[in-house]
């Protein structure tokens, strides 16, 4: 077939990719916006059932890379924080085809589903003819639009720790337009506060730097503290992020982005560290 292959199973897809010169096609909503070369050959992934699972085990929410946003919104297993972010992505026609795997593989700092996988410290399962790799999502991002996915590899699944995915969360997307907004600044925070102690805090900022921002060392300032101690540290915590975040210049000025980040972080802190 001119222009691509339509494998029925994972092994067949991995064989084709191992041969070189092909681009994985999931939902196409990032690929089709770019002008493709005349000799582009796609490997269409939509027939591969292994890439469509949505389930939970004792520890993880597990979803296949080719689950569409519509499928994830419909599943009772999908964590609320992920549903919230997905429900604000684009409009129904896009959500019906766009996949979570495409969102991550595209490696855009604006990717909204990827932001949730970052804040929950999800694991990415990559598969090739050579074998399987499991990588923390943070390590997958090498730069703007560059993910550590080799040409013969496919993302097969995401594993989201339930201990993170089910924590109280804060999610906000400050966008230009309501529907179809490629977010200008997005923020997700989760916090585990119980028995007067801060057990875990994680935050992620989208569309600010070249890759989604996730700074465990700054969030770690609060871990293990009593709520009172953490509240006393609020100024220092916000200042640490203010110093760390280096917004890229874009349509919206760097200063504006930074101010929005600070406001979102403050709002998360006030509503969840208590």
């Amino acid at each position, binding site marked *: *077939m*001119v*222009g*691509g*292959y*339509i494998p029925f199973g994972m092994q067949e897809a991995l064989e084709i990719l191992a041969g070189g010169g092909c681009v994985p*096609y999931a*939902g*196409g*909503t990032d*690929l*089709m*916006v770019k002008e*493709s070369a005349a000799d*582009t*050959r*796609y490997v*269409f992934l*939509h*027939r591969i059932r292994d890439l469509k699972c949505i389930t939970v085990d004792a520890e993880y929410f597990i979803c296949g890379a080719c689950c569409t946003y*519509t499928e994830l919104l419909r599943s009772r297993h999908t964590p609320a924080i992920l549903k919230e972010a997905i429900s604000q992505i*684009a*409009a*129904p*026609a*896009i959500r*019906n*085809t766009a996949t979570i795997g495409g969102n991550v593989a595209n490696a855009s700092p604006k990717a909204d589903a990827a932001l949730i996988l970052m804040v929950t410290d999800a694991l990415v399962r990559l598969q090739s003819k050579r074998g399987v790799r499991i990588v923390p999502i943070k390590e997958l991002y090498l730069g703007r639009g560059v993910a550590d996915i080799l040409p013969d590899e496919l993302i097969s699944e995401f594993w989201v720790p339930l201990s993170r995915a089910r924590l109280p969360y804060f999610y906000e997307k400050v966008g230009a337009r*309501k*529907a*179809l907004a490629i977010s200008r600044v997005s923020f997700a925070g989760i916090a585990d506060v119980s028995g007067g102690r801060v057990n875990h805090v994680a935050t992620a900022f989208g569309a600010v730097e070249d890759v989604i921002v996730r700074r465990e060392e700054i969030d770690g300032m609060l871990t293990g503290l009593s709520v009172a101690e953490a509240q006393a540290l609020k100024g220092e915590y916000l200042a640490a992020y203010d110093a760390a975040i280096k917004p890229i210049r874009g349509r919206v000025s760097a200063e504006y982005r930074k101010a929005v980040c600070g406001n979102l972080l403050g709002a998360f802190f006030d509503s969840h560290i208590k």
Partner: protein
Amino acid sequence: MNGQIKFILNGKDVVYAGSAAARLLDVLRDEYGLTGVKCGCKEGECGACAVLLNGQLVNSCMVAMGFVDGSIVLTIEGYKETARFAALDKAFAETAAVQCGYCIPGMVLAAEAVLAENPHPDEATIRSGLSGNLCRCTGYNAIVKAVQAAAEEGAGLW
């Protein structure tokens, strides 16, 4: 290695022998002469090119032909033959929901997708279901009213 791309287009079996990387929008218009499928942006932003793929609303400018293999595609030309279309058509006319008409094929298919999922949608559900379909003329209120009217008058169809 696979052969040609086979799918069902407006109820008929078709075989497409061109490139799997071609855009469904271009193929529908240029190969099959289905010019009710409009091109507004080719960036997934406007919904003028919307069709139903296996009953789900998709923007045909965002779909490569390989993705269509084995699927059922319905464009406004095929949908026109249904009683549901007649109900929407009447409602759009009676509420004066059409001006230039460019957005309407996509809008009607988006309305079908909303009503197929929820035969008695509230206004917010309709607006969110149509949120990817832009209309430069009407300001949307008449269109939303038309979908409400179709839901009421076409009761039992969805």
